[in-house]
């Protein structure tokens, strides 16, 4: 069994006991524990079930590479699935539950898959669920999705907050082990701005566990001294619980800081995403130990040798009383020695190598009386939910059992792989290191910046240096190199610290144990624990032709789980290489992509949640609207009132009332959101003639003209009223959504094409609150405000004038989008609400009511006015809409002119705008299509038109609609059929789109 030892670990504080629960069971741990060490201390070895076969699984590792031990953490607003117990700091009150089992962790029905594993090899799903085709969506996928999957998706809203932080530095060092500390120290001494990130909650990495001497003292003493030196430097920032998550172009890197995961509920953000720009990056990310591939290597109790050692030394937790060590290198002997020193039993070290002499750690282990079997291997592990023993065989053979050794834990080591992820994210190349049987950063091919120079340097174990002295020296040299790149200088007396060297025998690569393992053993030898990929699956993939490592990965799902194959990748591709009789470097690796270890989606969203999820633009009268029953609709990022509801009135009734009131009395519309661009200069007229299809240069000062704007391809992109302000100046109104894009459109043409034209543009949209005063009583209202002459004679239709109304300096445009007598009045935004209040006050006796965008739509549709985005969809040209009158024939050119002369654009069969009038006065469904006889080549009914705008008109008490119809204007009076999605068919007659006041008498009074 696993338990807490009497000799406490170096990281736990036994004076601070903590309580937590696992699957509802109350357990105890100490401050400094990870959830993994605390569970082990409580003899909870079984922690989860695998993804495909639901095999019982325990913890394998002690860090970020852990594939198995994932749990649901927390509850309600702080519930989070797939949390690694090895990277979860224990806190008082922590609640964890295991995943992927039913009904319980101990008894799981899904484990029947494991018995069927012979029938569920790689590619099983692809092959089996192909036919019949329709079954995939409705039968297979729902069933498979239900049975697979790890954690549950959270149901409650996340109660925490998150933030970003932009930081800039000369040198970013990722990894706070001894290499990272030394690199930061060397770089810091040069005066460079340094940021050092460490993923865990403590400095020094695994060097203190592995022991040795630095500068004649302990590793812990070196770490303490180095930290003191770093903390005294103002140019160095040290950050614990912050992972270097990714490296991107131009020295951009992401750091993921977990501020309160170890103390939920602490005020402030939970995670902080560091968005760092570094001139140079040093990756001191260490190395990850590889598992060995032997039968039963996934049974709980089989762990990485380094993890077994970490639990004993760091947390004072023994994984078992009797631990068999199996290895192909010297490093695992440290585990045997550490266990022995902790008073635990190591019945045997199975070393796959046959060494000529006992050096260093091997000699030390033997001197402690540990039995060492050279050239031996594990044939298979015994046990179900827990290791009970191993059978021993010769590594060179096919697994004939020589001996069975009872034990309750196995510590395995297949060698070490440098963590090259961050080096590789942005294109750093790897080389195969034959001596250590691993891929290491190729220092000659680093990720390169815009200047063609490398901007990432790997240091220490991450660069393939494993001996302590090499690690420290490499880190120092890496930092020196970086300092040189930055054109900075180190003080003269700075040198790398010296560490004591151990005598070491070389590693022997072992990719299968035993070397000649038959199929029976291969299909129990796991490569990817989380996704249940075994040696046999990778061999099958190779046999079936998936020779590329990327294809084999996707076929088998090797390395595709939430751990992204940190343990399985190298073993998997070595297995693939073996099956293909190819060299490992020739097979290559899969692509390393950020993040290194999962980060929360919320940290990426940062502060953008709840009321600041996205900017909502508000007009100066927004608060008034809110207080007066406005139901808002989004228009771009603005919120505009859709209708103003009174009392218990329905939205529909409110809209009908607003339309009637505006037609009969007086309506007020907040039109502040419409874009307003000032265009000025000696060439402004010429410029606007190019931007609009109409002639704007001839517009007289004081007059307004409705204009259309097209893209180079001839399609309508915007419309609005243009006013000539003075000889050199025009004011262009745009649609609400078009203000920014049309401003950019104008600037683009001015800056890239007509850079020599003398024109300046300024966007003054938000300078003004603009109110449309609409209806038969509009003039009376303005006259009551007083201050200027707004009579027909003084201010005719399509004219503007500056003046004063009710004491407010205003600009009044006599324009109409409703067909009524209408003024649009612009006032400085800071006076917008006051002006609105003044209008409401004088309008009280005149029947003034505010109206919203839906009323606006009905008013314009009754008049047959088009709306950009309703009648247009990016494929419509002005000619389609019968707007030929707004296209100047006198101009040589305008944007879109040539495009509109293309054959397809002049094709007479283009659908054209008409009015549509239902025969029974009902309202056509929006977007409905008109159908004709017969079917097209796809077997669909032939279509000859579609509805673009449709409303119930309270003025006419019937449905009014516009649509684009084949040969529409030539088919007046014809009745078309529009099938609705409600099963009904609607009949509508083609009519003139102007339903109301076709002679324009009402707006021209």
């Amino acid at each position, binding site marked *: 069994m696993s338990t807490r030892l009497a000799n406490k670990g170096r990281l736990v504080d036994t004076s601070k006991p903590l309580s937590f629960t696992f699957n509802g069971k109350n357990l105890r741990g100490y401050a400094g524990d990870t959830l993994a060490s605390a569970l082990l201390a409580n003899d909870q070895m079984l922690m989860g079930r695998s993804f495909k076969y639901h095999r019982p699984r325990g913890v394998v590792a002690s860090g970020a590479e852990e594939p198995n031990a994932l749990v649901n953490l927390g509850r309600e607003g702080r519930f989070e699935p797939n949390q690694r117990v090895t990277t979860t700091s224990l806190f008082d009150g922590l609640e964890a539950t295991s995943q992927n089992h039913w009904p319980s962790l101990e008894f799981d029905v899904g484990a029947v898959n494991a018995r069927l594993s012979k029938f569920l090899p790689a590619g099983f799903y692809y092959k089996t669920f192909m036919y019949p085709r329709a079954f995939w969506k409705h039968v297979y996928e729902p069933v498979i999705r239900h049975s697979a999957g790890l954690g549950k998706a959270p149901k409650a809203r996340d109660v925490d*907050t998150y933030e970003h932080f932009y930081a800039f530095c000369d040198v970013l060092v990722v990894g706070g082990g001894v290499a990272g500390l030394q690199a930061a120290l060397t770089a810091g001494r040069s005066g460079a701005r340094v940021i050092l990130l460490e993923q865990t909650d403590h400095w020094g990495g695994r060097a203190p566990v592995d022991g040795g001497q630095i500068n004649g003292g302990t590793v812990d003493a070196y770490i303490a001294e180095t930290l003191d030196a770093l903390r005294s430097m103002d140019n160095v920032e040290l950050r614990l619980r912050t992972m270097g998550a990714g490296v991107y172009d131009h020295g951009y890197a992401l750091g993921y800081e977990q501020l309160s995961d170890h103390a939920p509920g602490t005020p402030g953000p939970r995670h902080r995403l560091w968005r760092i720009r570094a001139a140079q990056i040093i990756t001191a990310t260490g190395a990850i130990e590889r598992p060995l591939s032997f039968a039963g290597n996934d049974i709980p109790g089989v762990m990485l040798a380094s993890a077994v050692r970490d639990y004993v030394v760091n947390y004072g937790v023994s994984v078992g009383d009797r631990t068999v060590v199996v290895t192909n290198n010297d490093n695992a002997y440290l585990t045997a020695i550490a266990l022995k020193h902790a008073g635990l039993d190591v019945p045997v070290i199975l070393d796959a190598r046959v060494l000529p002499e006992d050096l260093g750690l091997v000699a030390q282990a033997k001197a402690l009386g540990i039995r060492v079997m050279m050239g031996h291997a594990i044939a298979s592990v015994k046990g179900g939910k827990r290791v009970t023993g191993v059978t021993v065989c010769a590594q060179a053979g096919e697994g004939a059992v020589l001996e069975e050794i009872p034990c309750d834990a196995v510590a395995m080591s297949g060698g070490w792989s440098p963590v090259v992820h961050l080096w590789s994210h942005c294109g750093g190349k790897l080389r195969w290191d034959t001596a250590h049987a691993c891929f290491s950063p190729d220092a000659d091919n680093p990720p390169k910046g815009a200047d063609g120079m490398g901007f990432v340097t790997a240091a220490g174990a991450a660069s393939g240096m494993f001996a302590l002295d090499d690690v420290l020296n490499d880190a120092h040299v890496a930092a020196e190199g970086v300092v040189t790149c930055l054109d900075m200088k180190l003080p003269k007396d700075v040198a790398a610290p010296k560490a004591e060297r151990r005598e070491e025998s070389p590693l022997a690569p072992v990719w299968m144990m035993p070397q000649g393992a038959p199929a029976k053993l291969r299909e129990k030898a796991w490569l990817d624990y989380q996704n249940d990929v075994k040696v046999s699956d990778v061999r099958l993939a190779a046999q079936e032709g998936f020779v590329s490592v990327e294809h084999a990965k996707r076929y088998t799902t090797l390395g595709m789980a939430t751990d992204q194959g940190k343990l399985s990748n190298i073993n998997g591709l070595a297995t693939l290489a073996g099956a293909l009789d190819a060299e490992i470097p020739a097979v290559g690796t899969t692509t390393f992509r950020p993040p290194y270890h999962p980060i929360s989606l919320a940290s990426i969203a940062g502060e953008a949640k709840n009321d600041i999820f996205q900017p909502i*633009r508000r007009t100066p009268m927004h608060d008034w609207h809110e207080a007066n029953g406005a139901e808002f609709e989004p228009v771009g990022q603005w919120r505009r009132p859709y209708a103003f509801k009174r009392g218990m009135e329905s939205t529909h009734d409110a809209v009908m009332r607003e339309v009637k009131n505006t037609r009969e009395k007086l309506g007020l519309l907040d039109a502040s959101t419409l874009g307003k661009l000032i265009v000025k200069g000696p060439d402004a007229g010429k410029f606007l003639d190019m931007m609009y299809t109409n002639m704007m240069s001839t517009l007289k000062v004081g007059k307004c003209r409705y204009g259309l704007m097209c893209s180079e391809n001839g399609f309508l992109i915007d419309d609005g009223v243009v006013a000539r302000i003075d000889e050199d100046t025009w004011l262009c109104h745009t649609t609400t959504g078009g203000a920014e894009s049309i401003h950019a459109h104008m600037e683009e043409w001015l800056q890239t094409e007509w850079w020599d034209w003398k024109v300046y543009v300024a966007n003054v949209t938000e300078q003004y609150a603009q109110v449309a005063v609409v209806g038969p009583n509009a003039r009376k209202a303005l006259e009551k405000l007083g201050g200027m002459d707004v009579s027909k004679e003084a201010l005719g239709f399509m004219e503007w004038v500056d003046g004063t109304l009710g004491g407010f300096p205003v600009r009044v445009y006599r324009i109409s989008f409703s067909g009524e007598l209408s003024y649009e009045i612009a006032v400085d935004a800071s006076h917008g609400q*006051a002006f609105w209040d003044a209008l409401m006050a004088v309008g009280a006796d005149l029947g003034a009511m505010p109206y919203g965008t839906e009323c606006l739509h009905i008013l314009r549709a009754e008049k047959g006015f088009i709306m950009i985005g309703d009648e247009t969809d990016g494929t419509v040209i002005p000619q389609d809409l019968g707007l030929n009158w707004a296209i100047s024939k006198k101009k040589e050119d305008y944007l879109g002119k040539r495009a509109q002369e293309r054959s397809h654009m002049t094709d007479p069969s283009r659908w054209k705008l008409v009015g549509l009038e239902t025969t029974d006065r009902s309202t056509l469904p929006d977007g409905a299509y008109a159908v004709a006889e017969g079917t097209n080549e796809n077997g669909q009914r032939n279509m000859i038109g579609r509805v673009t705008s449709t409303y119930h008109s309270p003025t006419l008490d019937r449905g009014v609609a516009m649509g684009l119809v084949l040969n529409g204007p030539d088919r007046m009076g014809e009745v078309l059929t529009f099938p609705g999605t409600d099963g009904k068919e609607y009949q509508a007659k083609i009519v003139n789109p102007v339903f109301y006041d076709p002679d324009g008498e009402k707006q021209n009074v």
Partner: protein
Amino acid sequence: MSKPVTALGGASDATGIATVTEMGPMGMITLRGDLSVKAVTKAAVAAGGVTMPDQRMCNTEGAGGIAWMSPDELLIMCDYEHVHAKLADLQGKLAKEHALAVNVSDARAVFRVSGPHTREVIAKLAPVDMHPGSFTPGMFRRTRFAQVAAAFWMVDDQTAQIICFRSVAQYLFNTLNMAAQDGSLVGHFSKA
């Protein structure tokens, strides 16, 4: 004439690690023109009451000031009450030049973030190197704060003044306060 009302009526929040206050109303004029033409800069200097700032800098004094916005654009600052007169004067002086001067005082909202942790609050929202050695008072940046466009400068080492569009004033106020929330001190620019 009514009293001018800013977007948030001078809202202020001092509950977090920095104080966020809406300022104004303030007079602002956008001037576009050729900055190498003496008449243009002379008129700008007369309106702003300060000397011409260098590229990416601003000069301010009291309510007056000039900020460099782009190679052909300046932002001239003055008292809100004086903006119409200043604008008319500026337009008069530039009548013979190709230049565009418009009043944008009401199109904007202005905030101040103040306190010893101002730099950290800004660095959470704007991709700007806020290190005290890198961004010093007198420098001016057109950038973004989270999802909206903004421009800002440091009035002194502990005070930033930020200009954004009026319509997003509420968003920026809420976002600045979130960035300044209690317990969110980073300790990056000064060791905590």
